């Protein structure tokens, strides 16, 4: 069972990055009737989103986030020992986007850098990997980058996806240094590959490298199966994580869920019996940005951060794979949070 408790890791900061170009679903969506748009917006909850466009990649957004973060927390570039880039929208099939970012960020060649090919579950998995690397010894400082440009692989004519997705990147700085007596972080991770076709881009990989049908380069989503998966798996993983950590659901300050769809999230919140105020929503302004929606919600979710007291956050990613996981972590009051914009207006 993939359940772990890892001691002593600290989040020094989280910065999210979004393109400056905005798409207003109610004003700018041609190709659908006003009524259709209003219905989708009402159900999915996405009023506007940020769009990378053809020239901007996840790596660009993550680079912007990482530059801002390193400056904000005062980390020298050559003090970074590891870089993990979690993405399903890499710059190239080969090499790893993490290698590009190592050089673009001016990190030393003593830095271990690699990609992790996960989407919606990517942030809890990424935190787990970073925490393991630090607690295992040898890695003192790790940068976790998580970026996606799902708006770039949505079929514009498919109403179920084209108004839903937005693009975002993020950078999280991890280091040993939680105070004496701080609770360990808890992780519970899962996979069900039998649902691999429920969220899939069929073409462009090695099963079918050059499909004739251009729609095979766009994401296909089985909404009903994803809905069932979400409402079946998310409550259980939250319960399992609370048990692992020896906590009750009231002990968690915020449940930061992957911002899949407002309808699903409201249903989950009701099912879990937690107050809506503890489940911040950011998809109204940013859309479903895949896995980076979690760090984006940490920075933009309006979290109330009392001075002198850390927050207990339950981070839950669920989706493509099918893969899902949770991370129950501590966010110190002095951890730096923020967001930058990547200017792509022209």
């Amino acid at each position, binding site marked *: 069972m993939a359940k772990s408790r890892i001691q002593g890791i600290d989040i020094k900061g989280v910065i999210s990055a979004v393109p400056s170009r905005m798409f207003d679903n109610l004003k700018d969506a041609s190709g659908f009737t006003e009524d259709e748009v209003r*219905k*989708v917006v009402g*159900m999915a909850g996405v009023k506007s989103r940020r769009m990378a466009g053809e020239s901007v990649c996840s790596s660009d957004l993550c680079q912007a986030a990482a530059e801002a973060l390193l400056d904000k927390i005062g980390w020298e570039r050559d003090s970074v020992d590891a870089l993990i880039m979690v993405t399903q929208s890499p710059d190239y099939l080969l090499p790893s986007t993490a290698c590009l970012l190592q050089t673009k960020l001016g990190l030393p060649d003593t830095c271990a850098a690699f990609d992790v090919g996960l989407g919606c579950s990517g942030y809890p998995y990424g935190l787990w990997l970073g925490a393991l690397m630090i607690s295992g010894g040898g890695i003192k400082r790790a940068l976790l980058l998580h970026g996606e440009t799902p708006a770039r692989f949505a079929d514009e004519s498919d*109403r*179920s996806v084209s108004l839903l997705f937005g693009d975002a990147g993020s950078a999280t700085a991890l280091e040993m240094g939680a105070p004496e007596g701080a609770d360990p972080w808890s992780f519970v991770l899962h996979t069900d590959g039998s649902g691999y076709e429920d969220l899939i881009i069929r073409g462009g990989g090695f099963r079918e490298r050059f499909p004739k049908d251009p729609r095979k380069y766009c994401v296909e989503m*089985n*909404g*009903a*199966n994803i*809905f*069932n998966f979400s*409402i*079946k798996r998310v409550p259980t993983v939250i319960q399992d994580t609370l048990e692992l950590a020896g906590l009750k659901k009231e002990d968690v300050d915020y449940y930061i869920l992957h911002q899949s769809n407002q*309808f699903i999230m409201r*249903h989950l919140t*009701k*099912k879990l019996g937690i107050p809506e105020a503890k489940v911040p929503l950011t998809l109204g302004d940013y859309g479903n940005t895949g896995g980076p929606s979690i760090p984006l919600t940490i920075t933009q979710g309006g979290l109330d951060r009392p001075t002198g007291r850390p927050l207990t956050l339950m981070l839950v990613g669920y989706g493509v794979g099918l893969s899902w996981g949770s991370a129950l972590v501590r966010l110190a009051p002095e951890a730096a949070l923020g967001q930058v914009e990547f200017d792509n207006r022209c």
Partner: protein
Amino acid sequence: MAAEISSSEALAWVAEVFEVPVEKIRPETRRDEIEAWDSLGILTLMARLDEDYHILLTEEEIQQLQSVGDILNFLRKRGLLRDDQ
């Protein structure tokens, strides 16, 4: 298991799910005659089945629901429908 409901209560439930007056629907009413019964309406139906009856509707079952009567039969097969006298 959730308590049984009568056919007329089930019809009222379906009407509420699809936000139509109950007088406008009968078991014979087809899916394409109900405006809100589209892909988004199906998600609403799935959520209400989960919330009210703790049932998960699969993709195959969704394909088979083509009329209000099909939904009532689905509830009947799950032992949730008490037929009216």
